[in-house]
């Protein structure tokens, strides 16, 4: 398998099924013939889409192997609704792997902070050989059985907290703060989840001086650095394409809007 062969290809849908809850879907496409690193993503555009939905949609690679390319996505709008209606045999244009990945610090503990469908990129991370320096804290809204939490927890030390109420969210934030503080100078966090959660993670990383990487989900159009629609603001004030310079950034390198 080629690590860098990110051409555009038509892959076939092998399966497309809700994980249990209709809003969370597992999509498996035929093998793209490449592998990639956790945190990298692909752009998807089903060949059946007419011009009504112009853009492809970006998704983290949940896992990839000879068996296929696996995507875990949440139904949030028109595009994901139409993706959820894909059937085996349909074809999807796929380009990738794209962007930068989560870099593991092999000498120190790496704490995964995943929120909801943000757990996706960590499935392939948990599959790596060395797992003793990895652990995960997972915040979730739906029942745990809807997420690939079990797969990850079977390989690395994991803990899950469900958030159903504002009080639950406040509790989760407290735990996040504690974990981030505890790692200050001792390890790093790797975060993927909804933007409010990323802001919290960034805040505490900066406050406690803890190292961290976060994966942004800016709106994207091209995925290849051309449209300048997905830019993130660096602390030096530059706008850089998050599809090329991200989606995974060092928490210290970028700003996050209020």
């Amino acid at each position, binding site marked *: 398998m080629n690590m860098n062969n*990110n051409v555009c290809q038509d892959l076939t849908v092998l399966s497309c099924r809700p994980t249990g809850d209709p809003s969370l879907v597992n999509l498996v496409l035929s093998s793209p013939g490449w592998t990639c690193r956790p945190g990298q993503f692909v752009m998807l555009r089903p060949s059946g889409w007419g*011009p009504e939905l112009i853009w*492809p949609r970006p998704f983290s690679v949940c896992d990839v192997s000879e068996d296929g390319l696996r995507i875990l996505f949440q139904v949030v709008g028109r595009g994901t609704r139409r993706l959820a209606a894909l059937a085996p045999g349909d074809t999807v244009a796929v*380009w990738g792997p794209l962007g930068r990945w989560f870099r593991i610090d092999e000498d120190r503990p790496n704490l995964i902070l995943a929120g909801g469908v943000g757990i996706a990129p960590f499935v392939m991370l948990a599959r790596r050989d060395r797992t003793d320096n990895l652990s995960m804290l997972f915040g979730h809204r739906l029942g745990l059985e809807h997420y690939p939490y079990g797969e990850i927890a079977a390989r690395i030390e994991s803990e899950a907290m469900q958030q159903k109420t504002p009080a639950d969210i406040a509790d989760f934030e407290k735990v996040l703060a504690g974990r981030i503080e505890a790692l200050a100078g001792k390890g790093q966090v790797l975060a993927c989840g909804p933007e409010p959660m990323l802001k919290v993670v960034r805040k505490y990383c900066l406050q406690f001086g803890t190292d961290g990487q976060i994966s942004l989900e800016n709106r994207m*159009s*091209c995925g*290849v650095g051309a449209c*300048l*629609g997905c830019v993130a603001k660096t602390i030096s004030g530059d*706008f850089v394409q998050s599809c090329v310079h991200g989606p995974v950034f060092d928490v210290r390198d970028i700003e996050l809007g209020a």
Partner: protein
Amino acid sequence: MDQTVNLGSLTLANPIITASGTFGYGLEFMRYGDLSKLGALCLKGISLAPREGNPMPRIAETPCGMLNAIGLQNVGVEKFLKEKLPYIPAGATLIANLYAQTPEDFGELAAIFAGQDKISALEINISCPNVREGGVQFGQDPLMAAEVVGAVKKRAGAKPVIVKLSPNVTDVRVIARAAVDAGADMLSLINTLSGMAVDIRTRKSRLANVVGGLSGPAIKPVALRMVHQVAQAVNVPVIGMGGITCAEDVLEFILVGAHAVQVGTLNFMRPDNAFRLVEEVRALAESLGIGSWDEYRGTLKV
């Protein structure tokens, strides 16, 4: 069928040009196809000084189209010449897209590019709806348009000058004629239509810049109408664009009078689309028994 297109002193291997701002500096697409197979590449708009562009969000999807308000973010001409241009492979035909806020600065940019062997032509953008100064205001006033074109022509040396027109005008032919009278070697159109999208819940525009430019299939009927009007009004080659997504669309623009076309939003739908389009256009033209583009161009029966 020979796909060659003659645009005055500029000859292209085929009529497909990637539109400015949608194909980066070409480098972003080298993995997806051979740049030398394209008719030409219009590079991302370049200004004298670097520009950081507009705040986020900058793009929004709309029915059969999209809005953008990038605000001409670019590294500036100096950095472009040092850090980008040398890396674009030699076989590609390049068109620089110029943006400035005064006629003098437009002239300055033209002078710089006049000396660049790798650049085959200059396209001047007097039609960007997403910048406060010097953008569309030049493109909506025939006198100002003429002034900019004159300033560029004076310093562009042997490079053919393409003037890119705004659709946000009452009569596009008026600006077209002014640009040609001021020396434009070619015209390209249309740039984006000024538009908006809003979120009824947050009560905010979906673009930080509030307004943006509409592109994609939604605007194709407007683009075809304007290209048809302009091709009949002027005697220079016209490059048509706006919403092209397939070979049929390309032929539609040529049928109403375009010498060549540009494809913009199409590049976002799939990064190898422009390369595929070159082959699809060839196949379609041959299946229709078209002998040459000169034979087919402007043959709409009205």
